[in-house]
């Protein structure tokens, strides 16, 4: 029995952990912008970590249930209300058939994950239910949910107990100002030493354009490039390169003005130089940044990046242990 969508929110999409394996064909991994929050939401309601849930950005949908289920809302602080009564975030609660789930104003973060026991059972596309709207793949007909949609649920194993809650120290969220650790990349030599220092000392702010494809930042000083003869195939703009692959997290700076960090719905290649890459351990944080959030980029080396990745993996193990 499906969940009915009364109102959809801004751009609420069905997301799981994404569709790896097609990036070389231009199809990004997609999936939850904040992967740890999605995993936690699923574990709270007794789902597998890769089950499809709703990713609500900035504002929540209104959902009407037509069967009993267990729900958990994680990620950004988007307070759930059940028939108007407040419920806790990061905590599982029971919903009865006929009840309506809605949300208060977002208090912190940017994206909330709404997991429902059984998981959302829309048809997978290329092995994933994640919505990739630009490519019209996954989700409901390849798009964000809309009023009138009926979201099918998978079979529920057993009624999951309500009141399961993730300890506060395991709820990962960016600081304020947010700090994103960056490993300088292959094209670092294209900018002057002074520009390289400025990039890490300046304060940046998230631009309103930021979305699932990329997060744009503004407010820092423009980059100065080292003079060169444009290589074959690159344009005359000093931020252009001969086309190359774009890693997730890579930071392109068109014309040296505003850095863009590519995220889960990234394009896979193009002709902008990349300053470096936000380390994998900090990618979830980006998904929780509201427009205008003050952000600092912090230079790290590979050793620190790998240690941060191990630390994040340990946090995931602790989340699993806490919710097993």
């Amino acid at each position, binding site marked *: 029995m499906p969940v009915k969508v009364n109102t959809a929110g*801004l*751009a609420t999409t069905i997301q799981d952990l994404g569709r790896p394996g097609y990036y070389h064909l231009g199809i990004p991994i997609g999936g939850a912008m904040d992967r740890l929050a999605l995993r936690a939401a699923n574990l709270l309601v007794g789902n597998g970590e890769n089950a499809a849930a709703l990713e609500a*950005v*900035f*504002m929540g949908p209104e959902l009407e249930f037509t069967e009993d289920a267990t729900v958990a809302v994680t990620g950004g602080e988007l307070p759930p209300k059940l028939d108007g009564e407040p419920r806790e975030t990061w905590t599982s609660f029971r919903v009865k058939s006929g009840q309506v789930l809605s949300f*208060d*104003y*977002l*208090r912190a973060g*940017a994206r909330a994950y709404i997991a429902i026991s059984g998981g959302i059972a829309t048809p997978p596309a290329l092995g994933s239910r994640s919505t990739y709207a630009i490519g019209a793949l996954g989700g409901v007909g390849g798009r964000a949910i809309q009023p009138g949609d009926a979201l099918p649920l998978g079979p529920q194993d057993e009624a999951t107990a309500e009141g399961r809650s993730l300890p506060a120290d395991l709820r990962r969220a960016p600081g304020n100002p947010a700090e994103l650790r960056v490993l300088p990349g292959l094209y670092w030599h294209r900018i002057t030493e002074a520009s390289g220092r400025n990039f890490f000392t300046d304060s940046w702010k998230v631009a*309103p*354009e*930021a*979305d699932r494809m990329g997060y744009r930042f503004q407010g820092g000083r423009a980059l100065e490039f080292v003079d060169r003869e444009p290589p074959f195939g690159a344009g005359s703009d000093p931020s252009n390169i001969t086309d190359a692959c774009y890693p997730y997290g890579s930071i392109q700076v068109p014309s040296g003005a505003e850095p863009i960090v590519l995220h889960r719905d990234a394009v896979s290649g193009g002709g902008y130089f990349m300053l470096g890459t936000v380390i994998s351990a900090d990618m979830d944080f980006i998904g929780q940044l*509201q*427009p*205008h959030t003050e952000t600092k980029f912090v230079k790290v080396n590979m050793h620190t990046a790998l240690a941060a990745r191990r630390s994040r993996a340990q946090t995931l193990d602790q989340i699993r242990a806490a919710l097993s």
Partner: protein
Amino acid sequence: MPTSEIRTPLPGTFYRKPAPDQPAYKEPGDQVAKGDVIGLVEVMKSFHEIRSDVDGVVKAFLAENEDPISPGQVLVEVET
């Protein structure tokens, strides 16, 4: 007269006019009807209209043109 508050559900940049070369949707003292647009919020490469949910008279704008805004912030006070 009782005062009603119009809040933004979205973060982003607030605009009081439909385009840079056009007048503001509403000024203090203007009549406002339920459903009237009072401003725009720019976020994620699109513009979202903010509408009044009451009838009344605009008392004050608490956010100015091009201000950064957060969810739940009061944009306009309306005397009803």
